[in-house]
C-alpha cells in the first residue's frame, strides 16, 4: 500500500511538471493562435498532415476502427497497444508518466478513473481542442463522467447504462415474475433458491463497480468532490442505506452465488441457469454472445429493478472514454483520432462490433433501437438499454482516487460476503481507509 501511494504521489508531481512543460511548448509552436491556449483542432488539416500516434486500449472493437482510420487517412499511423485491462493499464500509464518516457498519445480510461487522472493533471483538457462544442453529442451519464472541474478530459467511447439481464428459462421454470422493484427481486431470489438450492438469482462476492452503481441508482451521493475537498459519507447517505438494507438480506440468507464475475465459473453459471440474472451495463450482450453460447435464446433484458415502484431510475456501470495524456507530444492528432473513434465514423464500426454507444444520435436512431437480437430471442434489446441511458440519475461523482479505493474494496466491504461483518461495517471501514489514503495524497477528506 505504501509503495503504491508513494508511487502515485510522485506520478502526480511529475505529471504536473510535464503538463507545464508542454503548455509552454504548445504556445511556442502555434504562434498565431494567441494567448498560448490551443484553438479547436482543425481535424481535416491535422489528419492530412499525418504523423504517428500510439493508442493504449483494451477495447476490442478499436482494432477495426484503427484499420478503417488508417485507410481513410493514409498519412497517419496508429500503433494500437493492449497494455492490459483496467488497473493493469493504469499502473503502466502511471509508471510511464513517472518515468517521463513511453507515454501514449491516447489512453482508454474508464469513467470511474477519469477524475483520478484528470485531477493529477495527467490528461489533456480536450475542451479547448474542440470538445467544448460537443455538448449534447453524448448521453448525460458518460458526458458528465468525463468532466472534472471546468475541463473535459476524455470523449465517451461507450456507455454502460444498467439493465436487468435475466435467464427467462429459469423464471418460467419456477413460475417467478421478472422483478420490477428490488423488494420483488429479493422475493424472487428466495423463491428461486428455495426451488433449486443450486440456483441463485445473482452472483456477488463483492464488486466495487457494482456497489457504487447500485448506490448511484438509489439516489445516493456518498462521494462529494469540490476541488481537493472531498467528503465520503456512507452512513448518512440514504441511497447507500437502501442498497445495504436489501443486499444484506440477500447475503444473510445465502441468496447470492459465491462466484466472482468474469471467472470461468461465472460464464458456466450464466450458461446453465444457476445464475439467473445480471444487473449490469448495456455492453454485456456482446460478452453473453461470445462467452455464453449455451444461453442463446434464453436471455432477455428488462429495466433495472427500482427502489420505488413506478420510478424509472438507472445508473451507469463501467464504460470508458478515450483520453489524451498530457505528456503526449502529438495532442492535436491524438484528439483527431479520439474524435473519429467516439464521434465520427468509428462509432458505426464499433456498433457493428457489438459495442454500446454513448452518442445520443445513435441511442435515439430508429435503426439502432429497432434492431432485433437473435441471441435474446428476437427482443429489441436496444430499446430497453437506450431508455436506460436516458434515465441515468444525475449528480453522481466518483472519488479523485477511485482506482485506489476500488482496489481495497474487497478487503473492506468484501468481508461482509465471507465473514460475520455487515455491509454497513464494511462500508464504514472502506470509507475510513479511503479517507486516510486521500488525505495522504494531498486531498482534504472528511475534515
Amino acid at each position, binding site marked *: 500500500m505504501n509503495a503504491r501511494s508513494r508511487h502515485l504521489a510522485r506520478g502526480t508531481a511529475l505529471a504536473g511538471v510535464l503538463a507545464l512543460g508542454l503548455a509552454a511548448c504548445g504556445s511556442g509552436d502555434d504562434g498565431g493562435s494567441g494567448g498560448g491556449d490551443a484553438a479547436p483542432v482543425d481535424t481535416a488539416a491535422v489528419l492530412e498532415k499525418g504523423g504517428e500516434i500510439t493508442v493504449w486500449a483494451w477495447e476490442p*472493437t478499436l482494432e477495426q476502427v484503427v484499420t478503417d482510420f488508417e485507410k481513410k487517412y493514409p498519412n497517419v499511423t496508429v500503433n494500437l497497444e493492449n497494455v492490459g485491462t483496467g488497473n493493469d493499464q493504469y499502473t503502466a500509464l502511471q*509508471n510511464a508518466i513517472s518515468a517521463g518516457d513511453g507515454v501514449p498519445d491516447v489512453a482508454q480510461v474508464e469513467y470511474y478513473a477519469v477524475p483520478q487522472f484528470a485531477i493529477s493533471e495527467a490528461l489533456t483538457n480536450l475542451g479547448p481542442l474542440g470538445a467544448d462544442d460537443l455538448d449534447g453529442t453524448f448521453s448525460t451519464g458518460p458526458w458528465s463522467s468525463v468532466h472534472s472541474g471546468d475541463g473535459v478530459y476524455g470523449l465517451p467511447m461507450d456507455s454502460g447504462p444498467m439493465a436487468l439481464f435475466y435467464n427467462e428459462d429459469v423464471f418460467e421454470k419456477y413460475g417467478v415474475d421478472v422483478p420490477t422493484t428490488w423488494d420483488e427481486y429479493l422475493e424472487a431470489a428466495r423463491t428461486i433458491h428455495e426451488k433449486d438450492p443450486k440456483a441463485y438469482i445473482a452472483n456477488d462476492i463483492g464488486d466495487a463497480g457494482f456497489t457504487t452503481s447500485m448506490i448511484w441508482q438509489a439516489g445516493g451521493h456518498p462521494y462529494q468532490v469540490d476541488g481537493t475537498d472531498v467528503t465520503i459519507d456512507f452512513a448518512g447517505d440514504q441511497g447507500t442505506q437502501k442498497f445495504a438494507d436489501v443486499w444484506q438480506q440477500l447475503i444473510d440468507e445465502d441468496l447470492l452465488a459465491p462466484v466472482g464475475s468474469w471467472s*470461468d465459473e461465472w*460464464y458456466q453459471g450464466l450458461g446453465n441457469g444457476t445464475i439467473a440474472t445480471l444487473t449490469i451495463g448495456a455492453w454485456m450482450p*456482446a460478452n453473453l454472445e461470445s*462467452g455464453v453460447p449455451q444461453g442463446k435464446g434464453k436471455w432477455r433484458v428488462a429495466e433495472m429493478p427500482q427502489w420505488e415502484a413506478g420510478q424509472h431510475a438507472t445508473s451507469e456501470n*463501467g464504460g470508458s472514454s478515450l483520453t489524451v495524456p498530457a505528456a503526449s507530444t502529438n495532442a492535436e492528432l491524438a484528439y483527431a483520432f479520439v474524435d473519429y473513434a467516439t464521434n465520427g465514423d468509428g462509432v458505426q464500426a464499433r456498433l457493428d462490433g457489438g459495442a454500446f454507444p454513448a452518442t445520443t444520435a445513435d441511442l435515439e436512431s430508429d435503426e439502432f433501437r429497432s434492431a432485433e437480437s437473435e441471441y435474446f430471442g428476437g427482443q429489441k434489446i436496444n430499446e430497453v438499454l437506450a431508455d436506460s441511458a436516458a434515465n441515468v440519475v444525475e449528480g453522481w461523482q466518483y472519488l479523485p482516487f477511485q482506482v485506489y479505493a476500488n482496489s481495497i474494496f474487497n478487503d473492506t466491504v468484501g468481508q461482509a460476503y465471507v465473514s460475520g461483518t455487515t455491509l454497513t461495517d464494511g462500508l464504514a471501514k472502506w470509507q475510513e481507509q479511503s479517507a486516510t489514503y486521500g488525505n495522504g495524497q494531498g486531498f482534504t477528506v472528511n475534515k
Partner: protein
Amino acid sequence: MSTLTAPARPAPRLRTPRHHSVARPRRSPLLTVLTAVVLVYSLVPLAWLLINATKTQEDLFSSFGLWFGDSFSLWDNIVTTLTYDDGVFVRWFGNTVLYVVVGAGGATFLAILGGYALAKFDFPGKRGVFALVIGAVAVPGTALAVPTFLMFSQLGLTNTPWAVIIPSLISPFGLYLMWTFAAEAIPGELLEAARIDGAGEFRTFFRVSLPLLAPGIVTVLLFTMVATWNNYFLPLIMLRDSSWYPLTLGLNAWNAQAATAGGEAIFNLVITGALLTILPLVAAFLLLQRYWQSGLAAGSVKE
C-alpha cells in the same frame, strides 16, 4: 523387515555397517504416504491441464474438471491456439525462446565465469563480493522491477527486448551455486598441474575446468531457464508492445479478454496455450536430468 534376508556378515569395514543398502532401502510407510501426497499434489494440476486442453469451451463449462468431456478437440485447440489472432502465439513463443536463449544462456555463462574466478583466484575484496552476492540472493527480483524500469526508461530501453534480456543476465543465485560448485569440483592441485605443464589461464579454464563443471552448469542453466521462461513481472512492466510479449504475458492477455466488455472469452485457448508453454520446460528437465543428478551427487563420495 528387509533385514531378515540380509546374511549376517560381520565383515570388518571402515565405515559403520549399514543394514540397508541403496538397493534395499528400508521402507517407511509414513514417508511413502508423504511422497505420494506430494506426487499427487504436483501431478493433479498437470493432469487437469492435459485433460482440459482436450475440451471445447462449452465442454469446459459443462463437464467435470478432472475427466474428459464429450468432445475430444485437443488437435483443434492446438491449431486454433497457433493461428488465433494471426498466429500471435507463435510470435510469443519465439520471443520466450529468444529471452531464454540469450538471457538464461548469458546468465549461465556469466555465472560460470564469475563463480570460477571467485572460487579459484584470490584477490582483494573477495569477502566483500561474497557479502554482496549473498545479499543479492536475498533480494527478490520483483522488488527491483520498478527501479529497474525507471532506470531503463532513462536509457530509452523500455519496450524493447533488451529490457527483458539485460536484467535476466544477472543471476546472483546462479553465481553463488557455481562458486560453491567450482570450489568443490575442481581440485586446486589439478589447476597447479595444468599451469606447471604450461597451460595458460584460458586453456586451463576451457580444457580442464569446464568439463569438470558440466553438472553444475546444467543445474544453473535449468534454474535460469525456468526463471526466464516463467518471468512475468519484469516483462509486464517493461513491455507495452504485444509483439514483444513472452508467453506468460500473452496468455495473461488472452485470459483478460474474458473480463473485458466486448472481449471474446477464450478459456480453451488459454488452457491449451498453457499446456504448450510448459512442454519445452518438461522436455528440458527430462533431457537434462541425468546431468543434474550427477551434479547434485558430485563430490559426495571419494572415488
